[in-house]
């Protein structure tokens, strides 16, 4: 049971990314019109634009929220080779009455020589850290040593993956058993280097990031990548948006004490779906990693769910305009307790917002 609501975003060009904040009450969109818009969900469930401003001098590819512990903070990255950190400041009372807020630029990261294709904050237990990846294959990890001062960031690591990067994802696990881990996807057309997904892991001994794994079976361009929430499990689950939807399971193999070598993994394919029958552009997990959403060039959003035996199946299909697809599989299911799952699909210059009311079957 889905309710689709169309929001006239009023971006003057293609929207490339949509991002919810931690609590699902705010949304940011970024576009080739070089601006970012911030949307707030009102008490009546309606989305209203509370800020809109020019951010870069090129298309803005991605926008992402920091954890609310760090305040109201956004990061964006662009074709103009920069990534920028923004902070919302509490405005004048008349602005508040008009429902407008102001975002100011805190820092511009100019280290990249090419288009910056993704920007993500690291899990909060690692502090205030920001990661970018660029078209020239460099992944950069920055840290703000003083979380109260967002204008000071230092470049902590530079990782040269040999391929043009398109997306990154941090493993959200805060378990002491897992070293910080980041997955990098590539849309490079180079066929020499087979695997288009690389996993880097931080090593306590060398104090550097080293490549732990390359997913050799992913040979086509990767558009999006997402680690599932960890749930205290020993293994990791990674979803990939490429010419199809893929879900991998990474099982860490035993490591001898504290070595300077990265963890070895056993890689299993949990699922592979070509139902979109076209390029898959985004993948996104729900909070409890029980549901995966994917969107593709077929103009549909598909939902995937596993049963207790790890058999993944499509559990729902949404068209970009919110209309149902005939021949939909049966009842949708979800996890009790998550009040609403919101799925946003991009449609040219408008934003389609699907609100799902959750069922109890679990």
């Amino acid at each position, binding site marked *: 049971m889905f309710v689709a609501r169309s929001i006239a975003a009023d971006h003057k060009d293609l929207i490339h990314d949509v991002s919810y904040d931690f609590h*699902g009450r705010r949304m940011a969109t970024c576009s080739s019109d070089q601006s970012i818009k911030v949307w707030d969900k009102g008490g009546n469930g309606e989305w209203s634009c509370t800020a809109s401003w020019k951010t870069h001098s090129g298309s803005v590819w991605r926008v992402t929220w920091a954890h609310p512990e760090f305040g*109201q903070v956004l990061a964006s990255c662009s074709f103009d080779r920069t990534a920028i950190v923004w902070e919302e400041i509490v405005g004048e009372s008349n602005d508040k009455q008009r429902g407008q807020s102001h975002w100011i630029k805190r820092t511009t990261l100019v280290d990249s020589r090419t288009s910056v294709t993704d920007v993500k904050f690291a899990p909060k237990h690692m502090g205030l850290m920001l990661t970018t990846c660029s078209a020239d294959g460099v992944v950069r990890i920055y840290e703000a040593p003083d979380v109260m001062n967002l204008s000071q960031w230092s470049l902590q690591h530079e990782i040269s993956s040999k391929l043009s990067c398109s997306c990154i994802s941090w493993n959200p696990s805060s378990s002491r058993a897992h070293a910080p881990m980041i997955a990098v996807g590539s849309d490079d057309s180079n066929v020499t280097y087979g695997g288009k997904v690389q996993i880097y892991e931080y090593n306590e001994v060398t104090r550097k990031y080293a490549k732990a794994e390359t997913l050799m079976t992913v040979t086509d361009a990767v558009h999006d990548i997402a680690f599932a929430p960890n749930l205290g499990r020993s293994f990791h689950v990674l979803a990939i948006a490429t010419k199809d939807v893929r879900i991998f399971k990474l099982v860490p193999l035993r490591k001898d004490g504290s070595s300077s070598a990265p963890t070895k993994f056993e890689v299993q394919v949990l699922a592979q779906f070509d139902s979109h029958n076209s390029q898959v552009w985004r993948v996104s997990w729900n909070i409890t990693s029980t549901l995966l959403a994917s969107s593709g060039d077929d103009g549909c959003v598909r939902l995937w769910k596993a049963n207790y035996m790890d058999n993944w199946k499509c559990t729902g299909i949404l068209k970009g305009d919110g209309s149902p697809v005939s021949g939909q599989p049966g009842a949708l299911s979800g996890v009790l307790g998550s*009040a609403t799952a919101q799925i946003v699909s991009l449609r040219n210059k408008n934003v389609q917002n699907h609100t799902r009311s959750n069922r109890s079957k679990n």
Partner: protein
Amino acid sequence: TTEKNKYVSILLAIELIWNLCEVLFIDAAPAGSLLLHLLDWVRLHKSDVDARAREVLQSDSPAHHQSYWDVVISLVLQGRVDEARQVLSKQASLRAESSSVFKRMDVLLHTMPIFNPTGTQTLTEFDVKWRHWHEECDRCLQDNTFASNRHLETICKILVGDEDTILEQKELLSTWYHFLVTRLLFTHPTIKPPDLHYYAQVHTTSPILLSLRYCYTELKLVKNKYYLLFYFNSDKFIYLFIYFFLRVFFHLLAVDYFDHCPEFGRVYLELQIERVPLDTERKAIKVLRICEDRQMSEQVRSICKIMAKRALRNNRLGSALSWSIRAKDAAFATLISERFLQDYCNKGSFTDLDLLDNLGPAMLLSDRLTFLGKYREFHRLYGENRFSEAAKLLLSLMTAKIAPRSLWMTLLTDALPLLEQKEVIFSVDQTYELMSCLEELNSGTKDSSQTDQDEDIESTKTELLRLALARNLAMAIVKEGTIET
């Protein structure tokens, strides 16, 4: 299956009340008639009362029928007071000596005002009349009028709308919405649709929420209750059930559910609970309580930090400080304490005195916070004219190195009024200590960011202090050197 039927009926009831609420909010029913509609609705669904009443009345000795009192009470619960009187009259004719209490009850039931929306009486007039009657019933209870007959006592308690007594009639009410209507009948007979809406939104003791709680306590008694949800095919029921409960009782139902999931329950709850939007402080506290009860310390810390950060953004220093203390975040507490002190330097007074005066052991979270608390204490002592205690505290702030160096001049300036009192407050030793603090301050390297004007002000202050300290020293020496006669 009887349990299953019971829960089917609860869900049906939820749908009914939901629809009813929807209708009520839109439908402009004439004032005062809402309750009558509700009563009709209840009577329609509780037709077994008529059958039982008939059975009792047609028996040889109605007053001794085992269902006699159940029937009377059921009729009262439905607001059918005339019929209740009719059944009661069978009792009264039997025992002459107790007939006076029965007569009393008969009068109460007979005089119960029932609003007639088509009549000439206004709602206000009705309300006044109803209140009088309600007080009369209450008086009977206070006077122990019905002490000799527990059934009559029960009926009287129902007439005053006593929640516990009405709840005790669970068996006769059998459905929670009946409970709701009965309670409304005897507490707010003039309820209007917007009131109902208001109650549902705001009052935690509202009839609707009470009824839901009643409903929930019923559910709680059954094991594996959640599996029952699988039996229901209709999406709408589940939707309503979950929606209503999650909205109103998230912290009761969903959390409970997670508590019972053996493998992933806790981690699911941890992940979900931190995503609950913290719209208000009240909501945050509710969520915190859930986390604290389960020793989810990381979630507690995170929620408090988010609230502290938000408060600071909105310049609510007191709130920010409370939250950072609760988060046990020393760094943030230090930052906020600095802001407090900055504010004090700019405005000359402290905000959030209540908080600062009652920090207690929380003061020890950070050095700066300790200083803030003690500094405020100094001001308080001074305000209460407890000068020697204030003086001692002020000095200790500097000598024990609790005060940051940057604030020493401010502290010394605070000492001036104490030095200029007629009475000697600082002792000789204390004065020497103050003098050495002043000299230590001045011996430090010059602050290059100071303007010429600032330098002038600084040196003037220093001169004033030196003079005041010297004068105080003189007086103190004399005082301490004088033998008391």
